[in-house]
């Protein structure tokens, strides 16, 4: 490959940054873990697919097409079709994670997740909205080129071919930018809400999301501690693009974000799947290359 020339214009520099090769472990980590987290989130629904998607369970009637609570009316399907959708979703997610027929699995998973998110607003949460986007990005990427069953079969057919070590940067850059924007937007929403002066964290620890850990913290953390945690979250989230942009703040930002998600996951019951999904993207996008290579036991000299 021709050695790249120095970029001239800001646009060329941006394009060069966007397309700069990234360690393939970043992409493959997201490809392996994210579908499993999405399936784990869906599992409590998939096992009741008939109650979810068919008239066996309660269904919100058609609301006229202009109601934000029903972004798209999709009529219920028969129980048999509901079970087929559930099985297809599980298979697509597992194949994507294992890297078997990766591209097809990613495309099918994206379509099925989008259907499930729109088919029933009552079961749609943030994870439901993130899922199709992640699967679609994986479909467009060359994920599965390594650490996958597809790669294993390819290696058997062509033992002389060395495995790839890097991937064109686009999809990783996209996830990186998305995370920074997501945190920043969330931080601004909190600033405009009650996070500066209200007891937001405390107030959400008393309902049926409460876990043994959140109850322990309710009893042991003083009132000012919750306010301090709110300020820490705000500081991290509002300025997240800056923390992730600067090399010397990137690693502390990853640690703060992972700690924040750990607390969310441990304190708010089923929100653990959202916390794990965000943590997966975070590690895949921003964890130091050395950590990732060690996790995959990849040869650093490759």
């Amino acid at each position, binding site marked *: 490959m021709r050695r790249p020339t120095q970029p001239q214009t800001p646009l060329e520099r941006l394009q060069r940054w966007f397309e700069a090769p990234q360690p393939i472990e970043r992409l493959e980590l997201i490809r392996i873990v994210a579908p499993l987290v999405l399936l784990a989130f869906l599992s409590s629904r998939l096992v009741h697919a008939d109650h979810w998607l068919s008239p066996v369970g*309660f269904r919100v009637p058609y609301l006229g097409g202009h109601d934000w609570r029903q972004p798209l009316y999709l009529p219920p399907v028969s129980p048999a079709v509901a079970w087929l959708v559930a099985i297809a979703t599980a298979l697509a997610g597992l194949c994507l994670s294992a890297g078997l027929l990766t591209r097809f699995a990613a495309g099918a998973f994206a379509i099925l997740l989008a259907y499930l998110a729109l088919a029933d607003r009552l*079961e749609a949460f943030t994870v439901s909205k993130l899922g199709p986007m992640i699967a679609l990005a994986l479909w467009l990427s060359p994920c599965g080129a390594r650490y996958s069953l597809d790669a294993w079969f390819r290696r058997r057919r062509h033992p002389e071919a060395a495995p790839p070590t890097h991937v064109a940067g686009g999809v990783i850059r*996209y996830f990186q930018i998305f995370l920074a924007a997501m945190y920043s937007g969330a931080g601004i929403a909190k600033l405009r809400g009650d996070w500066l002066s209200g007891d937001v964290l405390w107030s959400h620890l008393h309902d049926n999301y409460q876990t043994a850990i959140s109850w322990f913290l309710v009893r042991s953390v003083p009132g000012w501690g919750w306010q301090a945690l709110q300020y820490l979250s705000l500081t991290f989230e509002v300025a997240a693009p800056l923390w992730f942009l600067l090399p010397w703040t990137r690693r502390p930002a990853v640690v703060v974000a992972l700690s924040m998600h750990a607390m969310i996951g441990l304190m708010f019951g089923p929100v653990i799947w959202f916390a794990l999904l965000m943590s997966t993207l975070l590690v895949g996008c921003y964890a130091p290359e050395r950590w990732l290579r060690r996790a995959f036991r990849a040869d650093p000299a490759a």
Partner: protein
Amino acid sequence: MASKPGSGKPDSRKPNPAPVGPTKIDGPRLVQPWAPRRLRQVAAVLAGLYVFAVWLDAAGNGAADAALPLPLRFFVQEAALFPHAARDVIEWRAEAWFCDGERFAELDVRPYFPIRRDDKESRFYRAMFFHLHQRKVLAELDRFIAREQNRTHPEARIGGVMLLSLRIPIPPPGTPETRYQRLPLADYPPSVERHYWYVTDKAQREQRCADLAAGNPTAEPPAPSESP
């Protein structure tokens, strides 16, 4: 994708085609995307718009709301999580009109909503949370609960429901309290405010009970299934 370097198809319209297989770049072996360059360019633009819309929506700018149709808007409304403090813990409950006793009593509806039945991701909680002001949805909920109760418990038939919320005050930070547990309605003290959002009409309750007594549980027509 991991074929020999340089084995990819050349793009006749581009002077610098991207190889499909791993490419040697100063040691590392690069795997190129399978998607054609034009598709990737379109995807990059759409991805940029999506990220911008997510950020705008969370930041409180209404531009994405105004520009996007409902199904797309739904997918960008995902970053503004828990911006406000809860004033009270909200519990959603149901009381049913039991035909035999001709009285209202609490009905545990969790068995009829088995998906995450014990927390606020339950379909009953979500339906009440989103649609508490929409009588059409609450009437459908009434029909569904009555159908399931009368099907599974013919010995305790019901003619209708009252759907209500409880507002349980949240103590100030640092106040010692007991762990959350679901209590029967009767065990909540008077300080817990109750708000009734829906009650089945008296005539409808009596009609259902009469139909059930006559052995005709399906006399009531199903909900009108309007569709776009």
